[in-house]
């Protein structure tokens, strides 16, 4: 048992948030939206149950270091599917982060989580980490390991990591080059009136998906936006906040706020759903910081998913790429940001790309950071259901605008030896623009 003063300190983070907990009236409407409750049937693994545990900590009836609190708070995917169905508007995502911080302070998280958070939050460690990742990917060692390693014991996690890594390889659209038509642009693009847009480069995105960042810049420019480069930006801090390291998340948020303020951009384009959700919540994250809260709120107001920007002006139509694309909603785009149609609008700007929404697309893929490693069984179950739903689409590729989801679904497909590619919607649009010749300057690309 923890002594009273220590206990109080631990419960403090949550206690300060009492007002956020109070709107929950225990109606239970969130239960069916929760992927963990649907599979386990234990109410401690439901949003209402977790809120009840948080409330018990605040009321002093439950130790934040207790196994019950740590296990069930940790087991949450953080998908926030419970938020849109909550009639009382409980800010579950914010409360979860505070609960994670409370639980983490009471008892540190597992080594894989701590390692990953440390690496992603430190620029000097990030570069070599992702360099090794790209090396494993480029030499095809990752693909080989994923194919030959057994799926039991200690190999299971390694196999999953390698499969995730291998799945970040670029998908070559199936359509043949000859079949593509020339520019079919509708031509209603007033290039001069578009805003100045800064692009968040991110940590994983920069380390493993530079092609998506480049595609984002090209696609925005092709739609008439002026893209400004922002020096000094860092990881958005989303994974740290989700992992309960709110201090590090705040530090990263402050760096980003300073950097993006200095850029003078009208909007910040984000191509990773998790990062967008986190940045739109910077105001909440820094609400206890009087020097920054106002600035955080102002910056947050300029954050957009790249698809929102493109859809708002009606993306330019590119060249045809005949293919069948399965679209899956990232939770942090659909549930956390309420963005449902914009990425589909982006895909639909590619003529002859046939878009199918994955059955159960609103349910989490089980990616949730490194959930597959920290919760192999449950993560495997949730991921397996998603992979089956994707495969049932019989698509050429699955599109989902978040690196975590891309890697989770990609790894699942790879481990089942299924051939679907994994893409970000702007990648397809970018390829479509390239084929349409939008990027040729004086005949050269």
């Amino acid at each position, binding site marked *: 048992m923890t002594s009273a003063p220590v206990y109080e300190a631990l419960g403090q983070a949550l206690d300060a948030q009492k007002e956020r907990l109070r709107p929950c009236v225990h109606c239970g409407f969130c239960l*069916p939206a929760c992927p963990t409750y649907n599979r386990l049937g*234990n109410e401690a693994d439901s949003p209402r149950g977790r809120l009840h545990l948080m409330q018990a900590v605040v009321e002093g009836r439950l130790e934040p270091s207790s196994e019950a609190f740590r296990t069930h708070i940790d087991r949450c995917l953080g998908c926030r599917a419970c938020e849109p169905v909550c009639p*009382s508007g409980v800010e579950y995502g914010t409360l979860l982060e505070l609960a994670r911080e409370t639980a983490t302070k009471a008892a540190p998280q597992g080594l894989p989580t701590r390692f990953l958070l440390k690496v992603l939050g430190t620029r000097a460690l990030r570069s070599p980490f992702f360099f090794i990742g790209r090396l494993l990917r480029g030499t095809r060692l990752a693909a080989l390991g994923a194919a030959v390693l057994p799926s039991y014991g200690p190999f299971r996690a390694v196999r999953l990591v390698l499969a995730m890594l291998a799945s970040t390889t670029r998908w070559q659209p199936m359509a043949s080059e000859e079949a593509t038509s020339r520019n079919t642009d509708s031509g209603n693009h007033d290039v001069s009136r578009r805003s100045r847009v800064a692009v968040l480069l991110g940590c994983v995105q920069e380390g493993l998906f530079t092609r998506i960042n480049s595609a984002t810049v090209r696609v925005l420019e092709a739609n008439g936006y002026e893209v400004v480069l922002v020096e000094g930006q860092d990881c958005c801090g989303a994974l740290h906040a989700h992992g309960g390291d709110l201090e590090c998340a705040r530090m990263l948020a402050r760096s980003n706020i300073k950097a993006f303020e200095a850029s003078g951009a009208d909007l910040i384009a984000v191509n990773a759903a998790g990062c967008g959700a986190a940045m739109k919540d910077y105001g909440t994250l820094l609400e206890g910081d009087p020097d920054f809260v106002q600035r955080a709120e102002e910056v947050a107001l300029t954050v957009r998913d790249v698809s929102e920007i493109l859809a708002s002006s009606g993306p330019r139509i590119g060249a045809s790429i005949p293919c069948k694309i399965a679209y899956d909603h990232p939770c942090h785009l659909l549930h956390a940001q309420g963005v449902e149609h914009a990425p589909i609008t982006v895909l639909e700007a590619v003529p002859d790309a046939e878009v199918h929404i994955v059955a159960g697309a609103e349910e989490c893929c089980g990616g949730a950071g490194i959930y597959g490693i920290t919760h192999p069984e449950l993560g495997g179950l949730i991921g397996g259901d998603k992979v089956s739903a994707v495969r049932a689409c019989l698509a050429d590729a699955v599109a989902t605008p978040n690196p975590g989801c891309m890697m989770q679904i990609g790894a699942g497909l790879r481990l089942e030896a299924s051939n679907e590619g994994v893409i970000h919607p702007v990648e397809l649009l970018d390829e479509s623009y390239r084929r349409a010749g939008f990027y040729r300057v004086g005949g050269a690309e």
Partner: protein
Amino acid sequence: MYRLLEKGDEEPVASLLTGKVSSGMTRRLPSTVVSDLAEIVGHEHVITDPDCLLVYESDGLTAYRRPPRAVVLPSSTEEISAVVGLLHSNGIEVIPRGAGTGLSGGALATPEGVIVGTARMNRILKIDVENRIAIAQPGVINARLTEATNPYGLYYAPDPSSQSACTLGGNVAENSGGPHCLKYGVTARYVTGLTVVLAGGRIVELGGVGRDPYTTLDLVGLFVGSEGCFGIATEIELRLLPITEGVRTLLGIFESVESAGRAVTKIIASGLMPAAVEIVDGPTIEAVEASVFAAGYPLEAGAALVIEFDGTDAGLDLDADRAEQCCLEEGAIEVQRATDPEHRTKLWRARKKAFGAMGRIAPDLLVQDATVPRTKLPEVLAGIDDIGNRYGLKIANVFHAGDGNLHPNILFDRQNQNELELVERASKEIMQLCVDAGGTITGEHGVGVDKRQYMTLVHGPAELEAMAAAKRVFDPDSLFNPGKVLPAVEVKGATDTAKILAIGE
């Protein structure tokens, strides 16, 4: 022959004020029982950690709290039978629980009880399109059955406001209603057969499509609405309805709840047969409009009346015109008509999410449930308003006006002990008011633990004994959900055992 126990004799659980019981009072299960349970359902589906059990300390009615000794989550009829058999042979009480959305404390644990949850029994076993019948496990969510049968042009009619979360097993236990029960009737009308686990773990089949329940003793009818006091339904055979061709949804805006209530009386008296007639009052409009389910109700309105007609398309517009006329004659400020399915869904969502949305305007609420003759609606509503004013409590009304089923939502703050007492007193006065008006103490939420104390307002000793006798037939040792529904009564001159049985604890 029977006397009610004096106040004070009654076990503390039947009071809002003493409902809070700390987990320290819960006695752990013997380890042999725990390991035997784990053998039946699997180790991970037996919850005994007192910290984890906190989440099961209440259902949708949080005013009463008491964690169970354990929670068991079986996945089949056979597992439920084995679990109940094991617990009952050890003299341990069983409290059935569905999704825990109930509002009368029906799934509240007893101090010695173990909760048997149906959350993992969530499969639809059969959809028989030709016979318009579905067989489902009790943990299937109400709305999922309609979703699953929609592709066949069918749906499941009872639509409690919690239908997106509540389970069919819970619906059977509570004989749940919903807005459309005005025209279509409550759950009992749709249950044609049940597989039930009785005391001691015995599995019995009641009714079933092949067997006409009306030519024999209707045990299905007896079981539906028994609030978990007779046994656990493990397979439920339900009647489905074809989706109606047309639907018209109207929204009448009124200055006061009373005038909306008069409009309801006028609509029904005019011979119209609406599918649903719902009233949402001013404070509720305020809460809903502040929520994500805002439907664009005018904030200054005193009440909104949702009226729906369904059936063959021809004639529906005429019905809607007549209802609109009734509203205007009773002083409606305006009457809108849903223009498309999306608009209709939005109107209904606002009504159906009202309970949860109350969290926007108060930290706690007690959703009351009572029924009065429709013609008494205006005076009863005025009476409730008066009670609220006298106790200084905010009471928001949202209810199934068409069948006189009231849901006064009493808003309060649990942390204010004084307020809790006022809530309890106001609740009791509201019940008395409804009974005096010729109504009764529940419409659809069941008696549970909350209404138990009001049973004597409407039932005499003879009826109560008949109910107790019915329970004894199914559950002779009172090991299924004791302490619910029936008030604490003492059998004069009976043995100690008989006394305990009648009390239900």
